[in-house]
């Protein structure tokens, strides 16, 4: 209890609260604009927080991270266009409700479901903290190496139908991380005698290129559109009342979100589909799913909003990100001299609790803000896409240049922006590159540390936690190939 109070004390400062407020509201607005998204916003704003105190900077970016999915539901419901990629399933039932003239009901129901998902997820985080404080120290170099490997395997296999190219992108990410001067023997790797390559590729520059510059290029090059939104009709409080009719569904969907958030590499998409399927199977009116079912909306929004807080569990406890956004949050932590991992729980538990409480406050701020200001946010959505592209490009410059005050970095980001544009056009997954860069670095470091304590490869798995993680990796790979083989057999028997 004392630790929780210490966390509250850390948070109750005007600058921290202002940062949380700006981050939360900013996140909602950014999430509501299709084509921007939290990754772009965090990457642009990260360098701007260098001069701020660690907790202030972290809380601001945490606000954006945690609140963008709320905002993303708005264009998904009103325009059939998800604000962030993870709001895609919300369009299935949200937009048909808008077409029926129930836009306000749908919007408030989505907010309420998201609120429940968010709060339950943070509660899980708080309840699990004492357990994490005990379990996290059991993770030594070998265990963290294997957990990072598990994250890599999951992120590749989760791109079903694109596993090979996702693996290529992951290896590309590991390669990017290995470029430059290595710190053990001080030898150069793939620098081609270019001094600017000695320090390697900065993750933030690569992310800004792949996410922000590429998005700007795409918006500038494609046909210009000015999104049109319908009138908000219906009662805003209808949805809030309605959520109490589906307490079990909201709870179970949040549970799916929490579990999928904890597992690295899986994330919102799987959580949504699992909860949506569950909702449809247990519904009394399954035929209404996809045609404006309130239950479908509750299932997808509660599940996707439960993920961000849950994804902080492996990030904070082990320092292992599960997807691109948490990978970026990891750099946010590093930049502000907060090193996630077992030691954080042992030495700075009050700081961890301050972050948890910030997440709770964030959900309350966003929920209240959305109920009062939805109509105004709708106006922001209507920015023409090419003007938006120009704005992103302008803001990208600040983000890129301020990392190391280098024009070379701007050129590197431009190249990655061009690559990112091609990847987006061809629907090639970009997230594995980011995870390859982050997890590749963690794995190299932990592998080197572990080598001091192992004689044979089998020593890597001679501790219980390591053995469990290694078994999970083997099981997942076997299950993947088994499902491929089964699909092939089914295809043959059909033909």
């Amino acid at each position, binding site marked *: 209890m004392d630790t929780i109070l210490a966390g509250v004390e850390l948070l109750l400062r005007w600058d921290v609260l202002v940062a949380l407020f700006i981050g939360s509201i900013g996140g909602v607005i950014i999430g509501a604009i299709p084509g921007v998204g939290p990754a772009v916003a965090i990457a642009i704003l990260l360098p701007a927080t260098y001069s701020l105190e660690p907790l202030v900077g972290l809380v601001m970016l945490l606000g954006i991270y945690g609140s963008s999915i709320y905002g993303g539901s708005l264009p998904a419901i009103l325009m059939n266009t998800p604000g962030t990629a993870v709001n895609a399933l919300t369009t299935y039932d949200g937009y048909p409700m808008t077409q029926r003239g129930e836009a306000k009901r749908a919007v408030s129901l989505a907010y309420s479901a998201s609120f429940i998902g968010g709060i339950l997820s943070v509660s899980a985080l708080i309840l699990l903290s004492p357990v994490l404080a005990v379990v996290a120290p059991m993770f030594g170099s070998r265990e963290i190496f294997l957990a990072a490997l598990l994250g890599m395997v999951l992120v590749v296999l989760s791109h079903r139908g694109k596993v*090979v190219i996702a693996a290529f992108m992951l290896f590309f990410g*590991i390669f990017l991380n290995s470029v430059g001067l*290595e710190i053990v023997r001080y030898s150069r790797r793939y620098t*081609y005698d270019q001094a600017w390559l000695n320090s390697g590729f900065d993750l933030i520059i690569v992310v800004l290129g792949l996410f922000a510059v590429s998005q700007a290029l795409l918006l500038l090059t494609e046909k210009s559109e000015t999104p049109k939104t319908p009138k908000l009709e219906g009662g805003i409080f209808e949805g809030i009342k309605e959520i109490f009719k589906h307490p079990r569904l909201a709870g179970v969907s949040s549970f799916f979100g929490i579990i999928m958030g904890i597992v690295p590499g899986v994330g919102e998409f799987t959580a949504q589909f699992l909860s949506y399927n569950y909702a449809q199977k247990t519904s009394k009116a399954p035929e209404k799913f996809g045609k404006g079912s309130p239950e479908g909306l509750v299932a997808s929004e509660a599940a996707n909003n439960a993920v961000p807080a849950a994804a902080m569990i492996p990030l904070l406890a082990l320092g292992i990100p599960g997807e691109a956004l948490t990978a970026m949050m990891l750099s946010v932590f590093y930049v502000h001299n907060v090193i996630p991992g077992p030691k954080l729980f042992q030495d700075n538990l009050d700081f961890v609790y301050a972050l948890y409480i910030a997440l709770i406050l964030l959900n309350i701020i966003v929920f209240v803000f959305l109920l009062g200001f939805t109509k105004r946010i709708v106006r922001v959505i209507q920015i023409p896409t090419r003007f938006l592209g120009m704005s992103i490009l302008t803001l990208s410059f600040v983000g890129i240049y301020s990392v190391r005050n280098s024009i070379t970095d701007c050129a590197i980001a431009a190249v990655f922006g061009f690559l990112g*544009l091609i990847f987006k056009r*061809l629907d090639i997954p970009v997230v594995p590159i980011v995870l390859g860069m982050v997890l590749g670095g963690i794995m190299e470091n932990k592998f080197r540390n572990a080598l001091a304590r192992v004689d044979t490869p089998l020593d890597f798995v001679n501790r219980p936690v390591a053995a469990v993680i290694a078994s999970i990796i083997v099981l997942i790979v076997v299950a993947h190939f088994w499902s491929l083989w089964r699909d092939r057999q089914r295809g043959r028997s059909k033909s």
Partner: protein
Amino acid sequence: MDKDTGQLAGIRIAYPAFLLFAVFLAATFTDQVKWFNNLVLFKQPGLWALISVSGMVVTALIACIQVFIKPKTADVTWRSDVQELGFWVRACEYLVWFMVYVFAVPYLGYLPCTILFTTLLTLRVGHRSMRWCVRAILLAVVTVVIFRAFLQVKIPGGQIYEWLPSPLSKFLLMYL
């Protein structure tokens, strides 16, 4: 050209390019990564470069084989390849805009450059009314004030500011 055709056309160009890039990295491995004779494989500093480059070669090869062996999902011709390539090249124009902006900032100053960049680019993308120009200028001013003046993000002051009278020059160098 529909989306599927464009995608497949692009993939037919991109995957072989990935393979070529990976093979190039593999071919230059011995030049670019120092191998220590007295160290075992697992302790080599080049181990992760080796793992990543080998992985890239193998996966790019499999991806290429899959693309060229699998039955075509869309009607792709050399014309669609060129069209997709044309889209990529068109996007390069905006990269040039961006890099000109980047190079101009240390000379012309952050605020003037940003105003020029946003206004000219807004005109270029087709928003030619006064209303949009004003919005572009506002965006530039707000961006500069928030990031440079308020958050003190390190962006160089323009050389052009030094020609102005001292108090104004100092103010501009510090905040805009």
